[in-house]
């Protein structure tokens, strides 16, 4: 494939061209055409998180996916996914123990390549977490992770809930009036910079931040790989970043 086609495929102009010409196709079918250029996604394995579901979803969208087992693997990736299920403190301990912190920071902050944190992965982007005590996060985005405060409502917040786009030209631009995505969490990231708030979700009458975005850095509190077509559409947008 000529180099100029690889570059063109990653621009908004290409997506717009696809949208104009193939408007009737569902998001998933559009994806296969866009990803013929073959983006390579690395999934960070730090012992926590269901890698298989994310891999299935990304492969369905036409991306080439590999499981990154150590820092050196990151050179093979165009973009990275940090999944996560479990407790904040354990996750940070695992990331440090397996030597992930420096290589990921180099990839996402120095090289500024696309990076998405999913569920606990999004929370780890924060400065600190408060689950089972105070823990330092990666600190890439300002703010803290706090327990969902919803007296009378069930915790964890589990099930399908609507994500409303605050940033209408970012990752959530296909959502229209909002779309149901699958959540399962007891804590949420409270960013101290409103500019990075990309999506909001109402649980028990009060909003929490469900998507954050700052350039190449993205976080989704829900599981896009488990949110059917809207989830896949959001992952597709990440693949186009």
């Amino acid at each position, binding site marked *: 494939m000529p180099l100029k086609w690889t570059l063109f495929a990653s621009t908004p102009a290409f997506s717009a061209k696809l949208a104009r010409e193939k408007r009737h196709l569902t998001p998933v079918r559009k994806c296969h055409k866009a990803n013929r250029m073959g983006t390579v996604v690395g999934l960070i394995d730090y012992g926590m998180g269901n890698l298989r*579901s994310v891999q299935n979803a990304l492969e369905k969208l036409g991306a080439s996916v590999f499981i990154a087992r150590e820092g050196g693997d990151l050179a093979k990736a165009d973009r990275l996914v940090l999944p996560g299920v479990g407790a904040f403190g354990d996750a940070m301990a695992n990331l440090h123990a397996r030597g992930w912190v420096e290589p990921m920071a180099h990839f996402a902050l120095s090289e500024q390549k696309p990076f998405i944190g999913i569920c606990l992965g999004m929370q780890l982007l924060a400065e600190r977490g408060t689950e089972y005590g105070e823990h330092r996060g990666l600190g890439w985005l300002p703010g803290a992770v706090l327990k969902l405060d919803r007296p009378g409502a*069930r915790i*964890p917040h589990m099930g399908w809930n*609507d994500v409303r786009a605050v940033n209408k030209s970012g990752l959530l631009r296909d959502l229209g009036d909002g779309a149901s995505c699958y959540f399962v969490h007891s804590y949420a990231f409270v960013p101290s910079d409103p500019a990075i708030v990309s999506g909001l979700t*109402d*649980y028990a009458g009060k909003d929490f931040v469900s998507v954050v975005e700052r350039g190449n850095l993205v976080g989704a509190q829900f599981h896009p790989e*488990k949110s059917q*077509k809207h989830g896949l559409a959001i992952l597709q947008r990440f693949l186009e970043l």
Partner: protein
Amino acid sequence: MLRTRLIPVLLLQNGLLVRSESFSVHQVVGNPIHEAKRFNEWNVDELVYLDISRDGAYDLRRDDHKVKSVAEPMGILEEVSKSCFMPLTWGGRIRSVDDMRECFLHGADKVAINSGAFRTPELITAGAKAFGNQAIVVCVDVRQHADGRREVFIDGGREATGFDPVKWVGEAIERGAGEILLQSIDRDGTARGYDLELIKAVTAASSVPVVALGGVGRYEHYVEGIKAGADAVAAANIFHFKELSDRQGKRTMIKAGISVRL
């Protein structure tokens, strides 16, 4: 706002999908992998697979199936998870954290434990610690006796435990269960509707989501289950014998004012 979930449940016996009645009659209704694709096309909220096999003898070597044969449960789970872009719960004969780990490695998002949880309740805590509470579903099967008293049964409804459902559910939650799948053995396969008294009693005492199962025959039964306090409604047989049951079930709930995802 958080939507109410409608969850199809698929029962696996020796590698084939079956429907059941009061936990004893088991009629074959299909191929587990093919059905997962169908449910994914239907855009359902979640899928629960319960492996109710007794002796682990799996055989899918019939040639009338168009789908590839898989010889054992984890193989089936792995194939199923490839078509599941919604949460997938796997249950049946899970007795240890290693069993749970196998399920997650093969694509499950949550594991459902029943007899294993009752016989060794430490399993709930160990599972919650290793994988997070939200990934541990405790299944509670209940029979109602002639005098109205309800009792938890394990081992596919064969063994009485002497426990009141509310009591066992309370203990399971304390030990770390993230969700309760509450099943009425008497109502199973009868299409008479959920055991609403049971749902009311358990949900009033539960701090985690409760999914009701057992007895759905008409879509209105879903509405009754939610009004009795269930956080989500599940059903098995109705999905095998009716077209578009997922869509129609949800439309019935919407008419009754319940918020679901379309």
